[in-house]
Structure formats: C-alpha cells, structure tokens
C-alpha cells in the first residue's frame, strides 16, 4: 500500500439534523477518520451555496464534501432535493472546466449512520489524497 505523506484538507458541510448528528454518532462510537476532515455545521444541506464550495477551494481546501439527510428524510422535507440538483449542476460544471470531479462529493448520511459517516470520510480523504493538491481551483495568494 502506498504511504501518502501528503495531507489533504477536506471541508465537510454537514446538515444539522442528519449528517452532523451522524458525525456525532461516529464520535460516540469512536469510529476514527482522518483529522484532515473539518466539519462545518449548516442547518440543511440546501444551505450550502456553491460559492462556499468555491471559497473553500480558493482558501486551500483539496476536497469539499456536502452531507445531508437521505432523500425523503430531510428535516425540512425538500431541502436535500434542491441540494441534489444544485450540486449535480455545479459538479458537472466544475468537471466541464476540467477540474477533477473527485474533489467534490455529495453524500447522504443519516443521524443513525455513524459508521457510514466515518467510512465516507475515510474514503473521501483517500480519494482526494490520491489526487494530490488542488491545483486547478487554487488561489496562490491564499497558500503563502
């Protein structure tokens, strides 16, 4: 197995009701994932503005993951359905601009899925780590 010295910076936007609680449950169950993942709590995944994602990349993030309630489980009924469309459009556009599509991800993690949360983060960190540093959507001013 390849030992990766490079530590990616991952920003995870988690909805308060499902995924943030899922992350808490991962904590309760002591399910480890890399410290590279930093979570930002939002009321709903639909609160995540594409500008936040671009901002994270600008500021030095190597990967951005948005986690919300499973479709149908949104605390606000429909928020995650909008998220799904918004992110499908945004991710596709980033890919169209030649930016690695693996750097962005949308995952549904329920409050009961602590294990899934940890597994998802482990997998995402590994995926991003294998891509290396974010070069295509970076702002060098922020990396000094």
């Amino acid at each position: 197995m390849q030992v990766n010295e490079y530590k990616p910076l991952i920003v995870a936007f988690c909805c308060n009701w499902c995924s943030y609680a899922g992350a808490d449950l991962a904590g309760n169950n002591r399910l480890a994932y890399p410290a590279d993942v930093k979570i930002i709590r939002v009321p709903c995944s639909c609160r995540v503005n594409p500008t936040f994602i671009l901002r994270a990349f600008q500021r030095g993030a190597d990967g951005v993951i948005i986690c919300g309630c499973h479709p149908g489980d949104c605390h606000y009924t429909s928020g995650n359905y909008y998220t799904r469309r918004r992110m499908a459009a945004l991710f596709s556009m980033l890919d169209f601009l030649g930016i690695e599509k693996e750097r962005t991800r949308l995952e549904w993690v329920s409050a009961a899925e602590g294990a899934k949360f940890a597994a998802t983060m482990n997998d995402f960190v590994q995926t991003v780590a294998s891509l290396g540093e974010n070069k295509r959507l970076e702002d060098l001013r922020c990396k000094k």
Partner: protein
Amino acid sequence: MQKITREQLIAKASELLSNGTVSQVLGWGKGEFDYDVTPTLFSSAEELENGFVFNDFCGANFSKYLVSKAAKADGKLLVFLKPCDTYSFNQLLTEHRFDREKVYAVGIPCEGMADISKVKAISGDGIASINADGDNLVVTTLYEDAPITIATKDVLAERCINCKSKKHVAYDELMGEEGEVLASNRFDEVARLEAMTADERFAFWQNELSRCIRCNACRDACPACTCEKCVFDNPNSGVENKSPANEFEEKLFHIIRAYHVAGRCTDCGECSRVCPQNIPLHLLNRKFIKDINEFYGEYQAGEEVDSRAPLVNYTTEDLEPGEVFDRGDNNA
C-alpha cells in the same frame, strides 16, 4: 436580408404612437457606421424617420431594457422582439421584473443577424459601408476599390447559426409570418468539449478565461442578470471582486455568473456577443442547459411564463451528482 424592413417597422411604430397605444418606442438607433446600432427610445414619427434603423446588425436583445425603461415610460412602451428576444421577455415576466401592462410587444421575424467581425475577416477592416442586397451584404472598404459581396449566411453570428427558434413565445402583435421552434445543433460544441479529457478541457478554459478583463459586459448585457445589486458588486456578499486577480477569480466569476442564470438563461447569446475578448461564454450557459435537459428533462427557459426553473424544482427520483459522471458520455 431581413424579411421585414425598416420602413414597415417605422410605419407600425408611427401608427402605434399616433393612435396612442404606446408613448415611446424602443428600437435600434442609427450609429456612426452601417453596422453599429444603439438601443434608442423614440417618441415621434419624426425621430423614427431620422434615427431608426433595422438591418442585419440589429442583434441586441431589448428585453432587459424593459426592467428599467418600462417603469419610467408614461404610457406603454413599444418593443420590437425577435423570436429569441421573446424568450427573455417571458423569463423576465416569470421573475416579475417588469410590468406587462406597461409594454406593447411586437414580434418581428428574424433571418439571423450578422457578426461584424466575421464580415471584417472577409472584407478586411476599414469598412466604409455595408448594404444588404438580397441574401448578400455588399461591403465597401477604405482599401478596396471594388465593393465586396458576402453571403449573409456566411457571416451570421454564432448564436444565429444555431438558432433555436423562429417562433415568438410572447407578443401583443406579430408582424410577418410566425416561425417554428428549430432543431438546432447548439449543444454540439458543448458535447465536443465534454468528449475531451479533463486536461484538455482545463487547458481550453484556462486559455479562454485568461483573456477576461472583467468588464462585466457579459453580465450587464445579460437579460437574466437583472439583480438590483449583483453579488460581485456587493461588498457584503463575500464574493465581491472587481478584477480577475488570478486564475481562480476568473473561474469564480464565470462559474457563478453562469450558475446564477442556470435554469433561467434562455440561451440568447448576448454574453458572447458583447464580450470584447471573444470568450465563448455561451458555452458555459449551454453546458448548464444541456445538463438540465439531460438530467431533468427538456426545459427551455422563457418558453412559458410562470414555469418553474429546474434548479428551484425537484423530483424525488432525480439523479445523484455522482451519477452525472456515470452516464458514459464522459471520458475524462
């Protein structure tokens, strides 16, 4: 050559002015050269006679002016709308951006508008005059003794080559014959880019967007960009910026610009028409349109008033963002 003439339009406008239907006319004003026209307000038959033009260079989409001009007009404002303009007209109505009661819309046919840079590429620059003659443009220049004849179809603007519709989706009155929605090849270029590798696409856009001077012409000409205050001008938005300081900011502006009009963009092509650096900005908008069509079913912004834009809509069965890339048409 356009099927409708300047004289017919002046006659119609004069009639509507004189019978009190409208108090002002939003039309194309005569410029310095035969190819430059300025959106102009006319208030009388005399003004029309002196300054109104209609030719193969009247590409500007007037819909956006209704946001500012309709409210100010005393009576109704007459606006001439080409088929593509009517989509923007409806989209603006959907978004409650002007008062329909203040506008008298006359649909006019369009045979496609010419792109002056394409004319110059053939005739050479130093244009002295351009006159339509049947399906041709006759160009005289400062350097050639003989007039140069160019087929109008060879110098059509990119958006007109890929015209999506000759049908007017909104009007109070229609001049000339109604056309039909066309099966255009407007997504071919997007598809060509999609078929490239990610590296190639990155290089392509890097080259295109690096030319951006952030003059905001694309935004300010866009009929979908009618925000009272643009996020890029608003210091409290967190994304405000005035210049493309680096590659990131070039991309940021154009991604967000296209994203903000995604599902609302009628594909009128004004962004690319006005770009002083000839960046194919419409491709970004078309990418969103193509994706939306493929992900959520065909949707044409502005086709119907009050239709719900795809990004403010959903079904429970929508595809996941991860599945966007599993569709096999993307070899990146």
